[in-house]
């Protein structure tokens, strides 16, 4: 059984064993996944906010233009 590729904060390698075909142990894979999910959710949140802001600007602009006409 191979041990995990991750290096811990104290500079020592992670003692956990990896599943077949993996480079990292289940804990670090899940940890990386949780971080990726967090980034993804931040990006998705940002896109949603930007989308809402853009929609708002568009609606305000449309309202102003319709008033001027």
């Amino acid at each position: 059984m191979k041990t995990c590729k991750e290096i811990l904060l104290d500079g020592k390698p992670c003692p956990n064993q990896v599943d077949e075909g993996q480079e990292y142990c289940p804990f670090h894979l899940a940890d990386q996944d949780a971080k990726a999910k967090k980034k993804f959710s931040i990006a998705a949140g940002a896109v949603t906010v930007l989308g809402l802001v853009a929609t708002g600007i568009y609606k305000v602009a449309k309202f102003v233009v319709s008033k001027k006409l």
Partner: protein
Amino acid sequence: MPNKDNIVIQPDGEIISHTASQPDAIVFDEEKRQKLIQILRQIPAIVDVAKRLSEGKTYKAIIAPEALERIKEGSARLDKIDNGLLSTTIRDAKTGRFIDRVNLKEVTPDLLSSLNQLATQQTLANIVHRLEILDEKINDVLQGQTNDRLAEVESGIHIYEQAIVASNPDVRRELLVSAMQQLNDGRTRLIKSTNISFIDKLPRNRLGKFFSRYWDINKHVQSKAELVWKEAHAIVKASRYLVIAYSALNEPDSLRVSLEQVESEVKFFQDKMGEIVNWLSPTSNWRESLTTISQGVLPNIRDLDDISQKTIIVEFQPKEIAPPEGV
């Protein structure tokens, strides 16, 4: 790898790899050493040798495994033996220098069976000691946390505690039997009901993990593992008291059967605990405890089979066996 090769208790209480252990030997604790010295005192040849040894110096009596093997085979064959196999070697404890060899062929079958019983008791005491350390390793981290699943096992322990203070031997025996039943039932129920299969349902690859219904899989594993861990603790506790109870009744064979009945289930349990460890943070304070559990929560029944292959070593001073001249 079988249970027995995984952990060995060092004098300082550390659990180490079996490969680093000393050659097989039974070293008696003080109480059993005194009992063994009583047996040695009844062997005239040993008393004669002890009289010739220097006063104040410490010697070692080394009883070869062949002696215990012969005991196991049946003491009826003792009379036919005259090849020095059944002998005690006496050496200087400091230098290891050979002092004398004492033939044990004059030992009566009763004495030999006492010797065997003593070796069995010491082996059981070693097993209990190993389980105590395992229990402590888990307890240190679990401290203060309640465990409902322990109830049945706790009840068995309470009955055992009542048994050891009972003055009437019949009541004591009855309570011990009742405690053993409770402990056996509690342990079996725990082994059968523990939900350890959650580990098989966890996603193993990146994509599976990303689309898993658990937002933080590590947190999910930790919450599930905590329950399993508490149940493992109860199993260790039950095993420890079962060994003590069987030992008190001097029934090592019943202990052996009780352990064999749950061995395969416990092996599966331990393997899964080993898998759970890889899902925990390397800095988690559970880690060591869980790793220890994965190496063995049951006493090693083979320890009892191996008694006849072990050398008995007892240190003594000549006056402990042979009173000084003029006394």
